[in-house]
């Protein structure tokens, strides 16, 4: 069953090893080409309704190109290949949804930042975030910081472990 269903702005995206298919429900006019031609991949009665392992990459591209709107669009996962795509690939994002070009890395990396409030300890923040401390703004990418919650750290705003000495609870 389809494992790689992710949200992106305006809809969902589905990937196999070669391509990413974007689904934008707001523009679907239910022309039904997708499931009439390839029910193994596009099955509206199934959740998720797109199974990228249901057929070959070539066949999926062929059927996505039949979609008369930009409800279904596609692109190669290898950005270099996208540059050479020509206009006969009707529903390639280059022609239908240029805003999605080059965004594959962004969509893959849109993991929420993890904020963990530790038991009687600091708050640990992990991921991709901007950190503003006084007048400095630091771009933290795939990083981690530990912020004092007890108020007595000598290394403010960061935790230095003093919460344990003072018996902080909270």
């Amino acid at each position, binding site marked *: 069953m389809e494992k790689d269903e992710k949200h992106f702005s305006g809809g969902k995206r589905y990937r196999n090893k070669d391509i990413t298919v974007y689904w934008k429900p707001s523009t679907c006019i239910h022309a039904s080409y997708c499931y009439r031609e390839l029910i193994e991949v596009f099955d509206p009665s199934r959740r998720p309704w797109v199974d990228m392992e249901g057929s070959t990459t070539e066949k999926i591209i062929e059927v996505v190109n039949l979609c008369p709107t930009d409800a279904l669009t596609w692109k190669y996962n290898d950005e270099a290949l996208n540059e050479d795509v020509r206009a006969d690939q009707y529903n390639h994002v280059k022609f239908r949804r240029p805003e999605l070009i080059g965004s594959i890395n962004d969509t893959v*990396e849109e993991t929420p*930042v993890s904020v963990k*409030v530790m038991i*009687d300890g600091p708050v640990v923040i992990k991921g991709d975030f*901007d950190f503003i401390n006084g007048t400095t703004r630091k771009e*933290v990418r795939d990083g981690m910081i530990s912020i004092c919650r007890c*108020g007595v750290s000598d290394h403010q705003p960061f935790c230095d472990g003093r919460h344990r000495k003072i018996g902080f609870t909270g």
Partner: protein
Amino acid sequence: MDENKNKKPQAVVEIIEFGPLKISGNFTLKDIKRDKEESPGEIWLCRCGKSNNKPYCDESHKK
């Protein structure tokens, strides 16, 4: 290639001077002690240790 260049910040973490820790954006908050998990969009967490509504700020730091 530095792949981190393509990464956009998902959230903004801000130390409010003499105040709480403000977090906004795409994040999940896990409070282990109180066994709560949520994605609130925006929060202010206590940094002074005095809040009566931990982990949130209740402005006790002003007292």
